[in-house]
């Protein structure tokens, strides 16, 4: 019987130059502190010897265009490439210098997809979608010099309305936990993104975050108050710039009723950074 042996969620632009440019020295220092915490978490992940790592993250209109944006998508196949962006600027720079290809855990990905469709989750499937910083920035920090764990990338549409509901994302996570339990593998589950930033996805409001909202949702995670978390509406997530919490909702469904331990929480102004782990 399979087990979820490690579960964590964390911010996903782990790239000090980005914060130095856009926030200043204190932003750079704060993300460097977070990176040190994520490195420690990576050592804990490695000690659990996962056979596969399900990574739940969003696309920043790098992978899916406005021609088709899946609500949730499972990456299948044998390997996955890093997104290539010539002339990369801003958060895409977090990909600079990273490896070109990464292994996938084909069997687990197929089971999540196929059993999902049987269970009523109309997941999209992709054989070719590459990974952007939302996956690779935290994954490379977590793994350090160690070989990359075979991945199951799982996308949630966090930015192109209409978004899937928090409740539906949570249910997808419960589905992933059932698939893991029915399989033979030890599996890590990582969600990335957030906390609050880019409220209303408004360019005029770039630079604002909502620390009070972030403290409240992190408190709910610490207390295992999943009813309050899944009651959050996409309107609330949009208003506060908490779109990427939808990724975390999938993880919450996978680990419920576990409570989170806060490993890092930092209020930067432009964005609030965090790393949480769940004993499972």
């Amino acid at each position, binding site marked *: 019987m399979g087990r979820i042996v490690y579960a964590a969620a964390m911010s996903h632009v782990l790239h000090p130059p980005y914060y130095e*440019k*856009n926030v200043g020295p204190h932003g750079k220092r704060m993300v460097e502190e977070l990176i040190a915490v994520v490195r420690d978490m990576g050592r804990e992940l490695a000690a659990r010897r996962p056979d596969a790592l399900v990574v739940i993250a969003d696309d*920043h*209109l790098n992978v899916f*265009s*406005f*021609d088709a944006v899946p609500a949730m998508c499972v990456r299948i196949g044998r390997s996955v490439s890093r997104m290539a*962006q*010539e*002339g*990369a*600027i*801003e*958060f*895409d720079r977090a990909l600079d210098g990273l490896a070109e290809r990464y292994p996938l855990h084909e069997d687990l990905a197929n089971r999540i997809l196929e059993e999902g469709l049987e269970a009523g989750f109309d997941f999209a499937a992709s054989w070719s979608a590459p990974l952007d910083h939302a996956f690779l920035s935290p994954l490379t920090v977590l793994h350090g010099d160690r070989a990359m764990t075979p991945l199951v990338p799982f996308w949630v549409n966090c*930015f*192109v*309305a*209409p*978004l899937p509901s928090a409740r539906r994302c949570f249910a997808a996570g419960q589905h992933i936990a059932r698939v893991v339990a029915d399989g033979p593998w030890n599996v890590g589950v990582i969600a990335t993104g957030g906390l609050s930033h*880019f409220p209303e*996805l*408004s*360019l*005029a409001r*770039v630079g604002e975050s909502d620390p009070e909202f972030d403290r409240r949702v992190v408190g709910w995670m610490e207390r295992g108050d999943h009813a309050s978390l899944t009651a959050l509406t*996409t*309107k609330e997530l*949009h208003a506060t710039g908490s779109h990427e919490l939808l990724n975390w909702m999938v993880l919450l469904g996978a680990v419920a009723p576990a409570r989170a331990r806060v490993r890092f929480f930092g209020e930067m102004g432009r964005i609030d950074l965090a790393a949480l782990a769940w004993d499972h």
Partner: protein
Amino acid sequence: MGPLSRYDVNVLLYRLKKDAAFRDRFRRDPMDALRAAELSDDERDALVRWNPRRLNELGGSLHLLLSIPDLGAH
């Protein structure tokens, strides 16, 4: 959340990010690069004048507006 009908603006922003040849053409002669696009006058004007804030107000994706090489809105 924002309107769903801004397909054409966002297709152009996506192309500006991903297609270097189109981006060069747009920078040389934006009116010509946009000639075939189905845009409102407001959208076309915001693109030609490269007004990222206005484009965002008109439904242009924030993440695209922030990350188009040499035109990013940061």
